[in-house]
Every structure is written in structure tokens, then in C-alpha cells.
């Protein structure tokens, strides 16, 4: 990990709601953002955010779900809720009763990692009566390099589909434009331009920008005027290492 002085001078994300629901198009990087936000709040965030709970609500993706980072999250004192035993590997749409209980009896911050697109967000409808307006953050993760969210109209369409299927209203945006190992400074900054345009059209704030710590170390803090969440990839492919 590069400590990177400049990274430290980015403004960290500030979470003021007890429930943070992370949604987005397929492959926008929701799960990576969710587990990194949990890690950030558990290790560097203000005490009032803790304890941190992360719940895996991804019923549409069979692989690369936040449950795969469970052990590392638990080491940081984060409670992880996801199907256990054989069901952990199932492609059944399993929603544990613990999730609703976790939302209602919440203590600290609950991060919900939801599956992609309107299909993945539909699961939120079944929990609708647990969400009180004003008490949750519903944030969309935007990646300008994904086919269906490459421009403002695509983003707006995806957002309206997700609002329709989740029965919830968005409260903010997360700019997470990347190309995995091919991500450059320009990739990250061009994604912020898109997020700003979506923000202008919707009136929703950009809650934060997320990008790999390595790329962030090459960007001047003054070029990003929103809070920044540096990412350490936790959902790796079998041949990838983090060093």
C-alpha cells in the first residue's frame, strides 16, 4: 500500500445516515465500494458511525459478492450478514431474516450491498417497510466505462429503473469510474465529470469518489473537490494479489 501523502489530503467521505444502501448497474463496482466503505468506517471513520454491519443482498450475481471478503471484514470488527453454510454458494435468492432485524434494531451503521440493476434492487422492495425516509442513504455507484451507464441519459435510465423496482428514492451519487487494471488518472477524472452532470440533472450530491489508492496517489487533491474513498481491492480474481 502506498501511504501517498496526497491521498491523506483528500477529504474522507462523511456518513451521516445509519443505513447506507449501495446500488448500481451490473458491474459498476458496488460490492468493492461497499466493503471498502465498511473498512474505512471501521478503521478510520468517526466513532459515532460504529459498529459497522455489512449485509450482502446480492441475489443476482453468483460470484464476486461481498460475502467473499467476510473473513477480512470480521477481522476489522465488522459484522457481516450473508447466507451461511452451503447456501453461501447458492444462486438462490436468499434473504435472511437477520437483514431486516439488523436494519430495524440498528446500532451504528448498516451498509447494504445490493445486486446490480433494477433486477438486483428489487429485493429492497421486500424490505420497504423497514426504511424510514430521511434515515437512509440510497447511493448509486456510477462507472462511466460500463455499457449502460456510459452517458448521462444511460445513468438516468438506470436510476429510474432502480427507483422503480426498489420503491426508494436516491439521495446521492458515488463516482466509481474505473477500468480495473487499465485505470488511469483520466479515467477517474472523466468519471467525475459524468457524475457532476448527473448531479446537475438530478440535484443529488456526489457523496464521494472512489478509486484505487494507487491511481489516487497520482492525482492532485485539488483536482477532486468531493470526498474521496481510496479503494484496496478486496474481491480479487484467483490469480490476482494485492501487493
Amino acid at each position, binding site marked *: 500500500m502506498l501511504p501517498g501523502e496526497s491521498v491523506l489530503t483528500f477529504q474522507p467521505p462523511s456518513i451521516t445516515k445509519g443505513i447506507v444502501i449501495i446500488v448500481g448497474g*451490473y*458491474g459498476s463496482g458496488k460490492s468493492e465500494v461497499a466493503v471498502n466503505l465498511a473498512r474505512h468506517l471501521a478503521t478510520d471513520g468517526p466513532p459515532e458511525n460504529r459498529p459497522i454491519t455489512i449485509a450482502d443482498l446480492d441475489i443476482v*450475481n*453468483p*460470484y*464476486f459478492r461481498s460475502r467473499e471478503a467476510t473473513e477480512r471484514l470480521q477481522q476489522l470488527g465488522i459484522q457481516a450478514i450473508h447466507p451461511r453454510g452451503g447456501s453461501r*454458494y*447458492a*444462486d438462490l435468492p436468499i434473504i435472511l431474516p437477520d437483514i431486516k432485524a439488523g436494519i430495524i434494531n440498528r446500532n451504528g451503521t448498516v451498509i447494504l450491498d445490493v445486486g446490480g440493476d433494477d*433486477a438486483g434492487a428489487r429485493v429492497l422492495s421486500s424490505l420497504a417497510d423497514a426504511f424510514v425516509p430521511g434515515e437512509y442513504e440510497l447511493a448509486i455507484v456510477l*462507472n462511466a*466505462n*460500463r*455499457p449502460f451507464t*456510459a452517458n448521462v441519459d444511460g445513468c438516468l435510465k438506470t436510476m429510474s429503473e432502480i427507483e422503480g423496482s426498489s420503491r426508494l428514492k436516491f439521495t446521492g451519487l458515488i463516482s466509481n469510474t*474505473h*477500468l*480495473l*487494471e*487499465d485505470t488511469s488518472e483520466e479515467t477517474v477524472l472523466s468519471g467525475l465529470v459524468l457524475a457532476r452532470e448527473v448531479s446537475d440533472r438530478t440535484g443529488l450530491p456526489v457523496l464521494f469518489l472512489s478509486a484505487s489508492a494507487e491511481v489516487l496517489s497520482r492525482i492532485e487533491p485539488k483536482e477532486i473537490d468531493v470526498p474521496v474513498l481510496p479503494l484496496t481491492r478486496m474481491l480479487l*480474481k*484467483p*490469480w*490476482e*494479489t494485492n501487493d
Partner: protein
Amino acid sequence: MAKILMKGNEAIAEAALKAGATNYFCYPITPQTEVAEYLSRRMPEVGGVFLQGESELAVANMLFGASSTGKRVFTTSSSPGISLMQEAISYMAGAQLPVVIVNIMRGGPGLGGILPAQSDYFQATKAGGHGDYRVLVLAPSTIQEAVDLMMLAFHLADKYRNPVMMIGDGMIGQMMEPVEFPEKYKEPPLPPKTWAATGAKGRKPIIIKSLYLDPNLLEDNAWTLHDKYEQMKKEEVRFERYKVSAKNRILLVAYGTMARICQTAIDELEKKRISVGLFRPISLFPFPEKQIYQEAGKKNIGDVLVIEMSMAQMYEDVDRAVRGQKQVSFFGRTGGIVPSPEDVVEQIEKLIDKRKPKAKKKKA
């Protein structure tokens, strides 16, 4: 075209459209359902045919009918679904129909699990259905390669009038990578499809069939197919070598996702001054037999190690290709467990320890 980030399943779908294959029949099964979901959005945009059939059995037979029109057609499925398609694949091979079938493999046998595996190697490469036939099998190891091979698959299917299968473990379907599509897909010219059923106007009826009651004619058909497979062996063998050199002590053979894990292991071993090369078959049928024979025969190679996410399936082809020149060993994990680069390093170190003179083994 600029690079975009795509899930393997989406990229495969888009690649087919780029190759002019706008006719898709499917049945949902994890871990490849995103192909169907993606195409259900895209087909109306390109004026193509999208149909979710009642079973994989029906879907593969719909392909038989659809392919008979002479247009490019395809399906995608995963292991148990591919088993159900074997009936029609055998008939299409017999009737010489071009079709592209993608198998995003999960663990088996039976219902197995939904995690990645390579355990359909035998089924894909040895004729999964009945009769004397083969399908041409391609195995990508990156999403970009999946895109390139998917487009090539349609060309080869037309060139040979034979089913072409692209197989990837679940990881290939589910992972995301940056990919680039050609602005315009170019391919070498193909002969006109005079065999297609387009209506008997001004010509004799065309009959597309695999039935030959006269044994002499059935044998003739078997020879026709055989000749095509021999031509494939001459013209369609594809493979890649990674860090293969005269310093190598061990030659690894792996394909698909497993090959990428081996690459990471090879890089790790290099730091320990252990030189290992990787031979990665890209075409599994035709199998790069001669090339493996040559690589394994080199003086510097002490051992050949086949690594799979299955139980020694490709091992049999490698062992046959090496023809006793060297000891061929196997390491694999299956059922959805993906070996780590550390597992591979450990296996290689064990092999090297065995060869050390002090560790002489008693002869049986």
C-alpha cells in the same frame, strides 16, 4: 473503439452481435444467465431473434431449425444444460450445420454447484453425444480473448459447417475486464451457403438430415466428417506459450482461467530462480498435440505438469501427446474450488524436490 469494462457473459453476447450472429435461443442457468439478459435488451435494437425456449433440449433443436436457414445462430448455457443439448449437437454435426455453443462451466457431475470448474473437457472434446463426430472447441483465458474467439467461432462454424463450442469456466463468464471491440469485424471470405433451406424455387429440394439408412452412405458421411476434422487439425490448432525457454525445468500445461493462475505462479517462481514455462492450448479440439510433443521433448524439461479445475481430463490428451518422453503429472482442484497461485507453486516445488539426487526413490 475505446475500451469498456464488461462482464465475460456480456462481452460474449456483444461479440456474437459484432460477428453478425443476431439469432439467439436460450434457457436460463447460472453462471451464464447474463448473456440472455443482455441479449434480451440488445436483440430488439439490432432487429435480431431472441427466444427463451422451454428447455435446453428444445433450445438446441431450435438452433438446428434456425441454422438450416443459413443465418448465424448461437446459444449459451452451462454444464447441465449442455448435457441436454447433446442430442441436437450430434444431429447438427451429422447434418453438417454451423452453430456456436458456449459452455460457461460449473462443477459437476449432476447438478453439482454453481462455482467455476473445467470438468466438461471430455464432453466438449470427445463428442458429448452419440456417433462419430467432433466439435471444434475453443477456450479463452481472458475476456478480450473470449470476444475474439467468439467472433472467430462463427467463422469457423461456417468454414467447416460444423458446431463450434467455446468453453470457459464460470470465472470467464462472471469476471469483469476491460475489452475492446473492433469497429468493423472483418473475416476471410466464405463460400456461399448453397446447402441452406431457402425454398425450392428454381432448384431441387434441399434436405438437411443426418439419416442414412444405407450403411455405405452413412460410412461415406462419417468419412466426410472425418476429413473435416483432419483439416481442422492442420489449420485450426491454436495455443500460446508463456515464458517458455531453454532454462525451463518444468513445462506446465493449463487452459482458460487455470492458465492465468499458472502465470502468476510462474512469476512467483521466477523470483525464487525456478524457471517454469506454460503451454496453453487455446483450441482443445483440435488439440496442439505435436507442439506439446516438441516442447516436452526438449532436453531441459524434466517434468510436464498438467493443471486443471477438473479431475485429470486434459491430462489424458497431454499424456498421449508427450508419448512417454517425460513423466506427466497432474494437479487439480474441482467442484468449484479454484487452485491459488500458491497451490501451484507448492506442487512445482514438490516435483523439483522429487528430482533432487539426494531424494532418490526406491525403485519398485
